[in-house]
């Protein structure tokens, strides 16, 4: 009985805090994407024409965790298969955040664009039953400076 109460409390806490945190995070991502939209990002490896002086490596990473509510929901959902929207939004947040951090670093170096961008995803902590609790995304590329 106590176990069920604990799980229910954790789920409720996860739902309330997790949802608020995710909404805040998406708002912040949109705001910063707007600020950095002048800085273009490409994933092709050829340099656009121009007299580029420097091309340092830039990168950004982030580790993001699922909240308890989403973890419970996706556990239940994975019994039936289909889309796990909880993980979809987790990975989307992580990728966009990592890209933004990379762009922020390029911006402070005075770069015009970032080419050959690669994204790498790794599951960091595995909980009970090999369930993925948090993911790391690392974005890196070559910043081009005139």
């Amino acid at each position, binding site marked *: 009985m106590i176990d069920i109460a604990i799980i229910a409390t*954790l789920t409720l*806490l*996860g739902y309330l*805090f*997790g949802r608020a*945190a*995710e909404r805040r*995070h998406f708002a912040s991502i949109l705001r910063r994407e707007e600020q950095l939209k002048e800085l273009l990002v490409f994933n092709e*490896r050829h*340099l656009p024409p121009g007299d*580029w*002086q*420097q*091309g*340092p*490596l830039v*990168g950004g*990473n*982030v*580790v*993001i*965790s*699922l*909240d*308890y509510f*989403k*973890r419970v929901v996706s556990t239940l959902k994975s019994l039936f298969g289909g889309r796990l929207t909880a993980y979809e939004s987790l990975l989307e947040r992580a990728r966009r*955040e990592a890209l933004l951090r990379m762009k922020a670093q390029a911006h402070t170096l005075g770069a015009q664009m970032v*080419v*050959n961008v*690669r994204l*790498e995803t*790794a*599951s*960091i*902590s*595995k*909980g009970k039953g090999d369930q993925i*609790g*948090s993911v*790391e995304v*690392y974005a*890196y*590329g*070559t910043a*081009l400076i005139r």
Partner: protein
Amino acid sequence: MQISNIELIPGHRIVRHLGMVQGNTVRAKHVGKDILAGFKNIFGGELKAYTELLTEAREEAVQRMIAQAQHLGANAVVNVRFSTSSVTAGAAELFAYGTAVELVEESQA
């Protein structure tokens, strides 16, 4: 030492290829940080301690790769790639590899 993940460095010309160099590091999570991360697992959101840990670890892997390149007499590493894998529970391996090259500035070439 210049590092790039494309096969050239702007404004420079590669005069010699010195082969592949690599650097790795395996990091385990700190217990204290792990407990804090446990709380975060309830509320969700960024695990800042882990982000920093992995940034440091990646930095170290790059430093090891650079040390190897310097040993070969290179002054740049091009085509750098990163890779992460979890080897055992609670530990991650960060791996950086690239091609060590010798560069000269375009004007001198």
